């Protein structure tokens, strides 16, 4: 049942975790990194007597989609796309280009890994993870109409090192244009709730967490706003909306043929290359995801059935972590008359 108090606690939580589009620190970190990349490329290429490749940048990920959350453990992540003005014909192996990025950025307190879809640069401060930047590497087609993302790791076989068609701008446009007004705002809140659940849950179990973009795209496909009319005004019911979305996700786990018969949740990217955003999850990770989603659904149902908003918020804290605010019981009750007890006898 709809609880206006639980809804206001969810909204307060959302304000607490939302990562502002205009977050100054992240913006500075990103700009510093891109400058370092430019200097590093110049240094490395000039040393070999070559002309450094020029690149432009793309804002990527939750930062650009306005779906980011501040991390509970303090390790921020920044996504950025780098588009090299090169031809795929000249550089058929994207791992070569990704290695340029790695070498250009190498430095103290920095750990750089070439991953399948990006180059991850992790910074350490006082021995602790501080933040990391995922750099996706792109190149355009010769007519500039199509974009390709560099896939593959250093130890990947040749067939797994490819420039895959991608449409990073198209995805951002789709997510940013999804729904309007209050519904668009609820869409973003629900994505952020899912991400904070993901962070809280998979941190505890140590299992591989579903990628943020996967949760975002799942919400893009299956989000249905739920509202309640209270005293003739329409109110958004985030708890019911999140519950309905989680139910949809669970209902879509199915057997399907993908070289092998596999039981998985398939979430298709709505833009090129239209691949499954969870394709890289193993069957074991899929099973864990399903189990955790079931637990989440049960907790959301219990919170929704709670009469006492304090108890409902205590359940939600187990889902979303310590940052979820629990109201003082005295703020949840109407003011009542002073008690006046009469002598009473029962027989």
């Amino acid at each position: 049942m709809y609880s206006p108090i639980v809804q206001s606690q969810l909204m307060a939580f959302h304000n607490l975790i939302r990562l502002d589009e205009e977050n100054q620190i992240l913006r500075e970190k990103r700009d510093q990194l891109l400058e370092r990349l430019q200097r590093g490329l110049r240094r490395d290429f000039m040393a070999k007597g070559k002309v450094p490749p020029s690149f432009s940048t793309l804002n990527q990920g939750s930062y650009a989609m306005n779906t980011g959350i501040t991390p509970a453990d303090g390790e921020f992540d920044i996504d950025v796309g780098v588009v090299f003005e090169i031809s795929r014909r000249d550089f058929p192996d994207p791992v070569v280009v990704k290695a340029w990025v790695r070498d250009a950025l190498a430095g103290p307190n920095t750990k750089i890994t070439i991953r399948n879809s990006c180059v991850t640069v992790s910074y350490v401060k006082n021995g602790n993870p501080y933040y990391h930047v995922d750099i996706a590497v792109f190149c355009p087609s010769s007519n500039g109409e199509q974009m390709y993302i560099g896939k593959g790791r250093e130890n990947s076989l040749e067939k797994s090192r490819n420039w895959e068609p991608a449409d990073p701008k198209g995805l951002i446009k789709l997510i940013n244009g999804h729904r309007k007004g209050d519904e668009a705002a609820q869409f973003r809140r629900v994505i952020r709730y899912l991400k904070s659940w993901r962070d809280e849950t998979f941190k505890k179990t140590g299992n591989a967490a579903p990628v943020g973009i996967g949760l975002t795209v799942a919400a893009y496909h299956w989000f249905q706003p739920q509202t309640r009319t209270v005293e003739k005004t329409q109110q958004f019911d985030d708890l019911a909306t999140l519950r309905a979305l989680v139910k949809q996700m669970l209902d879509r786990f199915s057997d399907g043929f993908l070289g092998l018969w596999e039981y998985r949740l398939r979430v298709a990217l709505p833009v090129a290359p239209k691949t499954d955003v969870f394709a890289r999850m193993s069957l074991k990770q899929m099973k864990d995801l399903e189990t955790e989603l079931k637990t989440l659904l049960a907790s959301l149902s219990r919170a929704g059935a709670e009469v006492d908003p304090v108890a409902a918020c205590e359940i939600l804290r187990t889902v979303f972590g310590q940052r979820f605010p629990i109201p003082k019981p005295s703020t949840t009750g109407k003011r009542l008359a002073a008690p006046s007890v009469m002598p009473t006898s029962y027989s």
Partner: protein
Amino acid sequence: MIFRQSNGGRVKLATPALERIQGYRQTDEKKLAAGGLLLGRHVKGTDDYVVDWATVPMMRDTRQRRAFALDAFLHQREAEKLWRSSGGTCGLLGDWHTHREADPSPSRSDLQTWRSKLKGEPVTSPFLFFVIVGSERLGLWQAFANNRVERLALVN
């Protein structure tokens, strides 16, 4: 335990209140009747009530096998203390008492007592909740100022 009112609102007997009450079940011949107050919140923006706390028999009360008489003084003191410390949000919602039957129902005299409470001065609520604790089950009734008394259905 959660019960449903006829207007759709719900009443929750929260664990601390429930545990205190359940401890007084008259499960054998030797156990004396007991009773006390139901104290709790009317949840803002809803028709829901939460019984957060129950007072239990105190030294001035009279406890017999088939009768219980509550002396107002000490119960009033505990109720006032809670009401004050909760900023006036944890108030008197009704009372409870025990029966020796397994599945309790109000006696004629219980109904008279309930009705008299809603007619007494000062009337602070259009209705009150009453729990009867049987030896096996527990029931919740809502009594209104217009003499209507309803047994509330258990939701879970």
